[in-house]
């Protein structure tokens, strides 16, 4: 039962916590982002799930989850998520071995920053018709067109892995350097400063034949699974964030006095914190269960187990962040205190990679069969 954390995972967690505690940068925006990223890369985190054959550490999703949990706890602003949780699973699920061996070493070392374009909100429930970018074969190469309205880390990424709708039907995976001719990108003002986004417009972007990374047919099957892995690792990040909200709230309410006693001694406050903990532990359990069912990137993914983790973690984080603001009283609402940062991050995470309701519907489909309207 991998509900048990191994000693190695604990060591990884301790290192991550210690490093990030000294380098949190969520509130300050851009300064120092690159220094942090180089530090993270130096610790080998971008390499975590990259196979050893591709220059990575070859660890499992559980280890990636540990890193993302700690990074979620500290709200770090870095492209770690877009790499480890988003780009790497997509390549490992959909790209050919040759492509992986060519691309992953630089990503594992953190030399290149990557992101993914695969339909609005990067939902695992997307189909070809839902993709924003179209690709057509043009003699020896490819031409890509379309606008991706919101690209995560799209302002700093060196390249994007684009899942495009092929002219002949189906999906294809392409490597798109940000500086390609015909790509224009525009940074967007995100509420969550730690999750920067940009709009990418592709206007007749020409790519060489080898920019197509998938063996035909693999993306249609692999994209959902890859984005489900993203959702699972997002759950880990959210567990970290929710745990932090509780820590902050308990510490603040123990300190703060009202009516001559610590706010933490009021039963209503205690019960609210206890409910935060109930939700957090539910999310932790769900995450552990999903990681046990999905140890690595090979094989069929236990989609319903991912749904459990996704729904519980998103709900716990939203609840804990909102309660953290409320129980901090007036200051919870101010820029200087962290609850608002978690609140924004929780809001963001509830909308991407399939909303919790979309995941619930997927579970319902598994229980009852897909719902046909007018049946």
């Amino acid at each position: 039962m991998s509900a048990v954390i191994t000693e190695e995972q604990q060591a990884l967690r301790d290192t991550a916590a210690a490093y990030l505690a000294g380098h949190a940068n969520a509130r300050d925006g851009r300064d120092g982002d690159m220094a942090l990223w180089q530090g993270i890369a130096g610790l080998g985190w971008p390499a975590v799930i990259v196979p050893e054959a591709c220059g990575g550490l070859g660890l499992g999703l559980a280890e990636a989850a540990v890193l993302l949990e700690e990074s979620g706890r500290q709200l770090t602003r870095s492209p770690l998520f877009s790499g480890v949780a988003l780009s790497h699973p997509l390549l490992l699920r959909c790209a050919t071995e040759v492509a992986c061996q060519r691309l992953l070493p630089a990503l594992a070392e953190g030399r290149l920053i990557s992101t993914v374009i695969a339909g609005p909100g990067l939902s695992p429930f997307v189909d070809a018709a839902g993709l924003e970018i179209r690709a057509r074969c043009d003699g020896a190469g490819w031409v890509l067109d379309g606008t991706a309205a919101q690209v995560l880390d799209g302002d700093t990424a060196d390249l994007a892995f684009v899942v495009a709708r092929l002219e002949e039907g189906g999906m294809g995976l392409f490597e798109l350097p940000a500086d390609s001719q015909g790509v224009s990108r525009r940074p967007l003002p995100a509420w969550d400063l730690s999750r920067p986004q940009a709009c990418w417009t592709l206007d007749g972007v020409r790519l060489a034949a080898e920019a197509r990374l998938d063996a035909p047919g693999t993306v249609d099957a692999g994209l959902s699974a890859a984005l489900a892995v993203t959702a699972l690792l997002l759950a880990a990040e959210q567990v970290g964030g929710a745990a932090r909200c509780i820590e902050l709230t308990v510490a603040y309410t123990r300190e703060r006095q009202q009516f001559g006693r610590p706010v933490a001694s009021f039963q209503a406050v205690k019960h609210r914190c206890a409910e935060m903990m109930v939700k957090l532990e539910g999310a932790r359990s769900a995450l552990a269960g999903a990681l046990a069912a999905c140890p690595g990137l090979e094989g069929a993914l236990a989609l319903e187990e991912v749904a459990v983790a996704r729904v519980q973690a998103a709900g716990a984080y939203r609840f804990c962040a909102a309660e953290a603001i409320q129980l901090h009283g007036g200051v919870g609402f101010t820029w200087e205190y962290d609850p608002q940062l978690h609140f924004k991050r929780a809001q963001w995470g509830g909308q991407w990679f399939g909303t919790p309701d979309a995941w619930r519907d997927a579970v319902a489909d598994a229980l009852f069969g897909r719902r046909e309207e007018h049946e």
Partner: protein
Amino acid sequence: MSEIDEKTFRAEVADWMARHLVGRFEVLRHRGGPGDETAHPELRREWEQVMASGGWIGLGWPRAHGGRELPVSLQVAFHEEYARAGGPGRMGHIGETLLAPTLIDLGTPAQQQRFLPGIREGRTFWCQGYSEPGAGSDLAAIRSRCWLENGEWHLQGQKVWTSLAHDSEWIFVIARSTPGSVGREGLSFLLVPLAQPGVEIRPIRQMTGEAEFNEVFFDDARTAADCIVGAPGDGWKVAMALLGYERGLSTLGQQMHFSHELQLLVDAARAAGVDHDPALRRRIAEAWIGLRTLRANALRIFARGESGVGPEALVYKYAWSNWHRSLGELAMDVMGTAGDLQADNDPLRRLQQVFFFSRADTIYAGTNEIQLNLIAERGLGMPRG
């Protein structure tokens, strides 16, 4: 004056608004108010004088004090029509609806003559200095001190969560005038000019990045000896009386704003193409139902009139603030990933502000927790614990 027909009166308000909230004032439509106080403050100050010239300030004040002594039903009608026309959030409401009734009831004739005209004419703006860093929910824990020396009140201390402080000329403050006193004893209610060296106003940056609350620091600030309402030591009584005047007459106006926000949300749902999603439809219907309930609740409050505070008044703040918070969450779910971005489109931006700012609704003016205590103790007679 009660012979005025409500329908005629409403038409008169609507007509006046249609003729005045135009031209350079048009940008003020639906702007201002909590969550949007930083919008066009200078223009909104000017607008207050336009309002005054139309005779719309002091509708409920006694005629003896320059008011129009309108019945509650017409005051309600005014607030509704004002909000329906998109009238901007009022810069003068603290003076008009909180301080003025207090001065009329408890102030001296000299204070009335000195301060009421500026309020009625939309020239003098007031803000409120109650909360302190250590006295938020627990006002009795106030630590600011004041003392009379050389014919002047001196004031030392800090107030917090003061909205509109940077746009006001005066602040009313409760501070401890009896050294060593505790709790509700020994407090005094002072009127203090803000433009003086002893006062420093520091904006508090909030989660939206804007700042509509302030900290106000008093470092040996001064005010005249007669700028005290009630006797020294009566501060608690005066403060509580003041809170009692805001019986929610502007409530229906607030609800018209809510109604405007709900309409923006309905439009946004249509625009986003999610108006066929059964779950979102139901949640939007629930929001509509909640707002009608708030309206019916407010009508119960007004119907009771002066005959005391009923249960519907006791639950009202808790009800509206939590409703509003849910509205913000619903709006973001309607927007989906587009809600991640600071919208440059006015209606969506407004809804995003509702989402963020409404987190404060359940905190200021009595947190949810304080409200529930009050409901249990005053409404249900449960022991103080």
